[in-house]
């Protein structure tokens, strides 16, 4: 079981401190949500936690892996996977191949074996294919396996990204607004999915605007405002926290509107 430890993390763009002096730990096997008004630094934080951005200060450690300043594939190798707010699907592949690619960090065959298509590679590929199919079925995409990714509807692509992330069998899964753009029943599906994933022992970090979803699934919530920690605690504690309510007062109507908009979709 691996704990993510973030110490004094900071990231600034020019003079803007998108994230400043942030320290927290994420215990294994929990669902940990990061919320905050727009521009609070949530997506910046996810990008820092996956090596997409290099922090200007502070450190990120995942179990025994010191990851500060490492490229994203090291984060993946350490067992961190993520989805993206704006989809990053491999549109030149089938759904199945997308998910198979998600298992790249687990692949152990060399280049020469690949070019000669050795029996060992063929076996590894068959295995990879089987596992990828299982993850597709887990996300109810089994029927779409052979379809080109660019022919799938938006909701399916959202789930395809999650399948691809899970296929790498990560210890820590970061979800960047998985319910954005989904209708209420699809959002419910995401909530159920997050619980199932957490039940397998995978830590889930959720960045989400859908408060109902956040309150429903989170063991722990971190509230960001202007790149700093505003509050931290259980869903109950956060719901009644005066500072959080105040920070959200301006944004409350907006979040409400967003909720309605997704209900309309």
């Amino acid at each position, binding site marked *: 079981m691996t704990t993510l430890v973030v110490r004094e993390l900071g990231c600034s763009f020019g003079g803007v401190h998108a994230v400043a002096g942030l320290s927290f730990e994420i215990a294994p096997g929990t669902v940990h949500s990061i919320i905050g008004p727009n521009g609070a630094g949530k997506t910046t934080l996810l990008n820092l936690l996956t090596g*997409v951005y290099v922090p200007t200060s502070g450190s990120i450690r995942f179990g025994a892996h010191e990851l500060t300043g490492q490229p994203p594939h090291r984060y993946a190798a350490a067992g961190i996977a993520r989805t993206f707010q704006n989809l990053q699907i491999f549109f030149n592949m089938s759904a199945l191949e997308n998910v198979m690619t998600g298992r790249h960090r687990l692949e152990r065959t060399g280049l020469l074996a690949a070019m000669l298509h050795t029996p060992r590679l063929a076996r590894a590929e068959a295995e990879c294919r089987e596992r990828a199919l299982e993850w597709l079925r887990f996300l109810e995409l089994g029927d779409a396996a052979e379809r080109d990714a660019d022919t799938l509807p938006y909701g399916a692509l959202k789930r395809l990204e999650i399948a691809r992330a899970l296929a790498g069998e990560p210890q820590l899964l970061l979800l960047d607004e998985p319910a954005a753009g989904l209708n209420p029943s699809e959002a419910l599906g995401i909530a159920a999915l997050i619980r199932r994933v957490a039940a397998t022992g995978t830590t889930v970090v959720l960045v989400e605007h859908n408060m109902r979803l956040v309150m429903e699934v989170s063991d722990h919530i971190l509230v960001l405002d202007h790149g700093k920690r505003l509050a931290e605690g259980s869903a109950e504690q956060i719901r009644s926290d005066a500072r959080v309510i105040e920070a959200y007062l301006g944004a409350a109507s907006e979040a409400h509107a967003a909720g309605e908009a997704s209900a309309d979709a």
Partner: protein
Amino acid sequence: MESSVPCAATVSDGIAAAGLPAMRPRRRLRGLTLLALVLALLPLGFVNDYVADVAVLIALNAIVCVGLNLLIGYAGQISLGHAGFFGLGAYGSALLATHAGVPPLAALLAATALVGVLAALVGGPILRLKGHYLAMATLGLGIIVSIVITTEDRLTGGPDGMAVPPLTIAGFVVQGERAWYWILAGCLLAAVWLAQNLIASPTGRALRALHTSEVAAELAGVDSARHKLIVFVISALFAAFAGGLAAFHAGFVTPAKASFLHSIELVTMVVFGGMASTFGAVVGAAVLTLLPQLLTALKDYEMVVFGALLMATMIFFPRGIVPTLSALWQRWRR
């Protein structure tokens, strides 16, 4: 026009956009069998040495294009300098065989390996660049190679070129267009087989992944810098090997083999035949090697017609010949 051509794309859009999904295992073998059949039957049409010679040229270009397509079509990284690797393979083989007294076949393999090492050294810094900047850097690389070959005339014979001894395999001298044809047909089949195996492997998926989303590929665990370098070196090895063979086949090598124009021809073949399609690369090489030979009958209008055909193809087959036709075939069957 836009309405009649779905997803009409320019050449550079085609590079950025995605290609066909990798082929399923059985379809892959079917394609390879078909190619083997065509290559086996082709000599029936060799009415004279000239036709066989054109077939040899096609195979040489096709080998380079199959490798270049891995880089451009699948991994989405442009190179405008691959004629440089072709030229280095040719001159490297020639120099090792003439000046160093290395047996021709060993010279061919050693030159190919040396070019691979060079590509690995140069590729590191170059492949950090993206898009147009990568195009500029590879263009520069190709031009440097071309200039070095032209000016080092004591070694290379300069613009006049240099003679190359014949290729000997296990004591036998390779002679005659037919013998060369069979050797190159075998090499082309091997090249296609290797390329298709690579594409259908985790490495191939990694290449296609970093083509569409480098960040998502990285977060699946793909070391994108390493994979770009791998495919760059592989494509350089294909080019150098074909270059060496070309030198032995012609018995003579000139700097034109390493020229910028030749680099452009190679990229054109890949894009024309179809990005991210190994057979597209073969078809592109075949058509664009054959076409100028056929159009010589038009004399003064040759290049005009050639250019017009190229433009028309890219307008009506925006993804290249093979991907567009195979998409049409799929739709028709459904």
